[in-house]
């Protein structure tokens, strides 16, 4: 039997990080820490190893598989020494408990079928399509469906999905699936899945209710396979440790908006220490001073010299510090933009929906790291990406992963909350997404 080994660096940009030496240093650090935890009367508790594994996976410098393998090896070694240390499940290990070992949620296969991204046409009265994304065997349409009053009582718990059918101009019937969505008084916003994928000859798809056509998606539009012409992808300029701490800072910001229950401490000191020891963060990095300044501003205990807070962080703090905040704009807008592959993830921004509960971007994704099916209580998810959005008035909005649901294949449907919500119907959005090794900036037209 040859020794088994999981791949080295994290799910996102594994090759790049392993090649840059981050992966090897991180693995060596974790293995030496596990060795220290095994020694009798060790200063290192096995929980410390588990937390360090969590942090290194979050930073993208160690794959989930390899981290699991190292921790499992340590657990077995403790067991055969009669040491059954009480342990607390770490955040990532706990939340992934229902996934088989090493499974990557919505993993990209070896042979990737190109997605066709069809932008929605001009808005018409009634239901609103954000975009239609055709994959290998299905079409996914994030939409807002308006049900006529006689379709059922608006206060009912679920929309009358069972009465809906899918068809096209050739009379073909489609099975319809409905992802997680929001249902407010006769309007439902979420993804509709058409099965199978429509043939190339189909001119339009429609959702039919007993009271008539609810939505029509035009398939004759020119497909936009690639990102907007004004999308630029480039290598990450910060270290993986700086990336992770920036995302932790964003989690603190999300906490400040009071939309999410975030542990106010977030264990930032331990995170920084692990990243430094594992070679993923320089002790001289300016991110330390930025975090200190942010914590001071948010009234959290902070040590060390404070630096300048980035303007976009300040924009979020300022927006939520106002006594009266503008109400979120109401409506559904189409975007329909496929972004260049980012750290192994495919992302299509279908559109956005905004209303009383906030503004949410709707995406079709594949190749993301493991994510839970439901947002648990606690800090926002860290899916390995930092999301920032700028509206046409220059206002910054932090993107926070709200929920993700499967679409039946390798694709997932992702909803990202914008903090603060949009307060006006912006005509464009500039999206900045930073992964572990790459970042992309895209200018996207928004059609309400």
């Amino acid at each position, binding site marked *: 039997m040859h*020794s*088994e080994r999981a791949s080295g660096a994290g799910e996102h940009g594994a090759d790049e990080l392993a090649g840059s030496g981050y992966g090897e240093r991180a693995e*060596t650090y974790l*293995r030496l820490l596990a060795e220290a935890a095994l020694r009798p009367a060790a200063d290192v508790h096995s929980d410390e190893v588990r937390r360090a594994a969590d942090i290194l996976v979050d930073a993208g410098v160690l794959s989930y598989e390899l981290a699991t393998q190292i921790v499992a090896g340590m657990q077995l070694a403790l067991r055969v020494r009669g040491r059954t240390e009480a342990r607390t499940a770490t955040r990532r290990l706990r939340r992934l408990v229902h996934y088989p070992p090493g499974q990557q949620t919505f993993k990209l296969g070896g042979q990737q079928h190109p997605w066709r991204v069809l932008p929605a046409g001009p808005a018409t009265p009634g239901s609103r399509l954000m975009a239609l994304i055709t994959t290998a065997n299905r079409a996914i349409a994030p939409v807002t469906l308006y049900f006529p009053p006689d379709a059922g009582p608006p206060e009912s718990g679920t929309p009358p999905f069972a009465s809906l059918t899918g068809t096209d101009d050739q009379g073909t019937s489609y099975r319809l699936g409905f992802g997680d969505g929001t249902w407010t008084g006769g309007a439902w916003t979420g993804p509709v899945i058409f099965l199978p994928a429509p043939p190339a000859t189909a001119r339009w798809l429609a959702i039919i209710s007993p009271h008539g056509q609810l939505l029509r998606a035009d398939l004759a539009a020119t497909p936009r396979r690639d990102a907007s012409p004004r999308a630029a992808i480039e290598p990450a300029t910060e270290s993986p440790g700086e990336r992770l701490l920036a995302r932790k800072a964003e989690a603190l910001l999300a906490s400040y908006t009071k939309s999410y229950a975030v542990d106010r401490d977030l264990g930032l000191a331990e995170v920084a220490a692990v990243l430094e020891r594992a070679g993923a963060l320089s002790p001289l990095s300016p991110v330390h001073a930025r975090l200190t300044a942010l914590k001071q501003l948010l009234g959290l205990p902070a040590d060390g010299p404070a630096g300048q807070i980035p303007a976009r962080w300040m924009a979020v703090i300022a927006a939520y510090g106002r006594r009266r905040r503008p109400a979120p704009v109401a409506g559904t807008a189409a975007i329909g933009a496929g972004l260049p592959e980012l750290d192994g993830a495919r992302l299509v921004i279908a559109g956005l929906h905004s209303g009383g509960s906030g503004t949410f971007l709707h995406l079709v994704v594949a190749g993301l790291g493991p994510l839970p099916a439901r947002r648990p209580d606690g800090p926002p998810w860290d899916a390995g990406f930092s999301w920032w959005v700028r509206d046409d008035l220059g206002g910054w909005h932090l993107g926070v992963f709200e929920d993700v649901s499967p679409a039946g294949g390798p694709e997932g449907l992702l909803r990202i909350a914008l903090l603060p919500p949009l307060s006006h119907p912006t005509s464009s959005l500039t999206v900045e997404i930073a992964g572990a090794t790459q970042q992309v900036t895209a200018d996207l037209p928004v059609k309400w």
Partner: protein
Amino acid sequence: MSWFDSLPAAETAVPCGTGTHTVRWEGGLLTLPAHPDAEAELVLGALGGERPACIALAQTWAGHADDLAVLTAGPRSAADRVSVDWSEIAELRAKLPSGLAQMTSMLRMSATVTPFIRHSGPQAGTQAAQPAGHSGPVSRLGAAGMEEVLRRQLRQVELLELLALGAEFQFRLAGTVTAAWAGPDRAAERARRRPELSGVLTGRFALAARDWAGVDPDAVTVTPHEGDGWGTLEISGTGRSRRLRAALPLGWLAEVWAGGLAVVDGHLVVAVEQPGYPLARVLAIAAPDAEPTSVEVRATGSLAGGLMTWTL
């Protein structure tokens, strides 16, 4: 000259059938005195006959002879006691789906087992039969994920089984694994597994360095040494900032550490020049500021935690 030349034979008793049988390790090989024609019993087992536990154990030993997980679970020093009870193994085996262990062993049997069993009977032309159509319990489980989970469970049970052989065998298996990885033909693989091998080396050498010079084991880092010579060793700092950095060939674990030679009468052994039992010649460092010198060591004939003890 082999890595195991400084190791005497070892024996232990294992449950087999309704009784216990002796398993013997000698000269790098596992032998089954109670099963003089192990190969024939292997073939019968592959054809559906009953496979004695001793035979299965020999297969398991061979199957893990280059499995680095052995080093993760196994002992780091004579004082590091690793203990597994045979009753625990029986319980874990009983929880595995019926036939899984046998099938998995059969699938890999012919390729890996024969070099590690000393043959008493005919040796030529014995090939294990493959299960017809692979239609056993593994394939019936369907989902690849479930199959993988079961495979890992089986691997863990096998590992525990090998550890249940006791300390003497644990060190000899660790030596077998590291010797398998130390050859010049595996330099590229070693380069890919450098962090893992650093952990394996550091975990063991750090305890030897503590016994030798009182260095805090947490302050020791060892990296695999490739190329000529025994490697390097450097101690820096004082007090709490005292650090030891070393580069040692992976073969140090097989030739020195597994033979109980890591520290002999206050000397840190960095290489074996002439292996042997009960006499061997080693390269040893008397003190942190000293250079390695060639010295002769003699086995005392007594064991400490499964490791042979030596004296200058």
